[in-house]
């Protein structure tokens, strides 16, 4: 078959920067059907499908794109759903440029197929239709406990339920979704979409017990003793890191986790209609260069800050954030202070933040991460006036489960040691995946780990 003439990569319409910075609504609108079909027609339908190898959950990419091209959007969605429990989420937050789209044959010429945008299109189409309840699988009589209702846990639970196992998710918060609800802001991932994906899992038979902190109200051993045949731990990020500089405990200094949790999960941006307060800042510095830092900076703008700086000690090239997020943040007016490192947060006599003292840096030799190490420039000290500092430099794993599960092996950084392929931990019948195993990573990588663990749990339950 002769490939059709190729159009350029199709842009996704979005709210203008001036408009969106005043609201919390989603930034891109998604493809209209005609645009989706044009974009889908760009796909070469490679037999070898290199794109699939870049996908941690191995979505059958060429097949679903072909269905979009043919106008069978429902079938496109079904194909994605076969491998991906949360396609509307992944279409929005996956770093496609480092995964599927990176391996697209067209990428060599500069413009890969917009796989992420097409995935989002098909998934949104599916969500807009009457929900399809998959035919119930024959019950296996096996019970699995999943700890944490984030990307890893939801994926693992969904796959196991589809295979006929009875699955209960234990979630510490009052709402399921994990980082998808507490971390990623509404303007990047509408919470109604997360809810719709969770509802789909419930229809597939997954039970969710909220307000259940495993390690406190029940231990892993107690779950096993009360009749669960296997446990999957997907508890995600834990204690936020701080820099260890003076002034970090002043009023007005937040971890990104706290700032985003207040705004996203607790809806502090709608205070006082919602009761959780958040400081309405004028001048903000966000410390860090990842997606979380971008989310915090863009949230601060939407909460009405006049000036938001992003302070990062390396250069733009080393920023771990997605290009699209960096671009969106800059477009909205976040000011980048690159090669800059805070050394002290300054307070007033009431213990409130009034400024930050920083040093300029330059890049030296590569460090252990392979990135060039930032080195302070002598005599470059300067102060900025601020009322809020948000620290977005990562997390260490939550200790609640390791500290109450004595035979669970933990790595040097507090992460749970688990087999890369199966997620099996040092403890029989206990599996783990996501950030609690890898340290901070992406939504889709956590989902991939949840998926592989589901496969391994299924094999173990049915083999034994």
């Amino acid at each position, binding site marked *: 078959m002769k490939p059709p003439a190729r159009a350029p990569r199709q842009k996704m319409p979005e709210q203008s920067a001036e408009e969106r910075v005043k609201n919390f609504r989603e930034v891109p609108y998604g493809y209209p059907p005609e645009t989706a079909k044009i974009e889908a027609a760009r796909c070469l339908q490679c037999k070898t499908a290199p794109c699939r190898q870049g996908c941690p959950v191995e979505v059958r990419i060429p097949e679903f794109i072909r269905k979009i091209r043919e106008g069978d959007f429902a079938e496109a969605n079904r194909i994605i759903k076969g491998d991906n429990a949360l396609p509307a989420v992944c279409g929005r937050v996956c770093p496609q440029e480092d995964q599927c789209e990176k391996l697209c044959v067209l990428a060599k010429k500069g413009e890969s197929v917009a796989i992420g945008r097409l995935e989002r299109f098909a998934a949104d189409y599916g969500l807009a239709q009457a929900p399809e309840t998959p035919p119930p699988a024959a019950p296996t009589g096996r019970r699995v406990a999943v700890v944490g209702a984030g990307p890893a846990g939801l994926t693992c639970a969904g796959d196991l339920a589809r295979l006929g196992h009875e699955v209960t998710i234990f979630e510490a918060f009052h709402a399921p979704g994990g980082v998808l609800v507490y971390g990623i802001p509404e303007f990047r991932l509408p919470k109604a979409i997360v809810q719709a994906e969770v509802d789909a899992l419930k229809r597939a038979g997954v039970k969710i017990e909220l307000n259940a*902190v495993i390690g*406190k109200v*029940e231990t892993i051993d107690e779950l096993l003793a009360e009749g669960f045949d296997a446990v999957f731990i997907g508890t995600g990020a834990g204690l936020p890191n701080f820099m260890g500089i003076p002034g970090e405990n002043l*009023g*007005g200094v937040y971890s990104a986790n*706290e700032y985003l*949790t207040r705004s996203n999960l607790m809806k502090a941006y709608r205070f006082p209609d919602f009761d*959780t307060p958040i400081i309405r800042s004028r001048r903000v510095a966000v410390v860090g260069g990842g997606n979380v830092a971008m989310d915090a900076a863009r949230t601060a703008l939407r909460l009405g800050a006049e000036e938001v700086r992003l302070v990062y000690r390396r250069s733009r090239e080393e920023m771990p954030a997605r290009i699209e997020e960096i671009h969106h943040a800059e477009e909205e007016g976040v000011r980048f202070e690159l090669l800059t490192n805070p050394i002290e947060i300054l307070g007033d006599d009431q213990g409130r933040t009034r400024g930050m003292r920083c040093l300029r840096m330059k890049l030296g030799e590569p460090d252990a991460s392979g990135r060039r190490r930032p080195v302070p420039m002598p005599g470059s000290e300067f102060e900025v006036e601020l009322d809020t500092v948000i620290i977005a430099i990562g997390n260490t794993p939550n200790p609640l489960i390791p500290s109450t599960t004595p035979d669970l092996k933990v790595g040097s950084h507090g992460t749970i040691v688990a087999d890369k392929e199966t997620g099996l931990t040092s403890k029989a019948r206990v599996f783990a995946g996501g950030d609690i195993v890898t340290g901070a990573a992406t939504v889709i990588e956590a989902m991939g780990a949840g998926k592989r663990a589901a496969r391994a749990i299924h094999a173990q339950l049915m083999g034994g």
Partner: protein
Amino acid sequence: MFAIKKKRLIAPKVVLMEVLAPKIARKRRAGQFVILRVNDTGERFPLTIADSDAEAGTITIIFQIAGKSTALLAALNEGEAIQDVVGPLGRPTHIEKVGHVVCIGGGVGIAPVYPILRAMKEIGNRVTSIISARSKDLLILEEEMRAHSDDLKVATDDGSHGFKGFPTQILQGMMNGGERIDLVVAVGPVPLMRAVCEVTRPRGIPTVVSLNPIMVDGTGMCGGCRVSVGGKTQFVCVDGPEFDGHQVDFDLLSKRLRTYADLERASAEAHKCKIGAG
């Protein structure tokens, strides 16, 4: 949803509730707390578990109506339910037989002291309790505290009941009288805990305080509850809530507690207006 089985006003603006939460009731130990969210628009806030009944599956919480969230909670009646209750959170109190333990509770801080006192007594310590309030009608749990203490002393600011003055004066008096004290546990407003620590510091009497900072998730995720203890940052929700009082930076704690004072006042006022108008 967590049903309220019993509700009682035990002092002006101080409410006791027994809440159905069987798993928490079974597991909780002295010193631990729950985080509550009253309704779908509510904030998450911590309250110490004052008591529990594993058989009935209930936990007891005691709180003072201080802002909008506690007003909303107090407005719920028996038979109604709290949207979310999660726990038991925090580390349990370290309970050990040390000899003579003095348990000090100030105001609504008597509620968190009550389970600690009982655990300290049960393991075989001699326990003296000092409880205080601004005046007699504000004093809570006097009979319950007396029933489990070897000796109970009362202080009120206005002298309407017991000693007229502060509990620290009673403590100082005991120390001056040569009484041997092996451990002091103090819970209450920050100024009280700080004052107790200043009294015990010169004699090096180990002093444990239970901190109640601003919290959001309560499971070690947000870091909002951080305090400085011995110059090191600690998270109250997972490292605490109890710490060596001589190491706590109380000044920082009270400043952080005021972070949202203006916003909270505005929110409470708006809430009152709404009730008034409705």
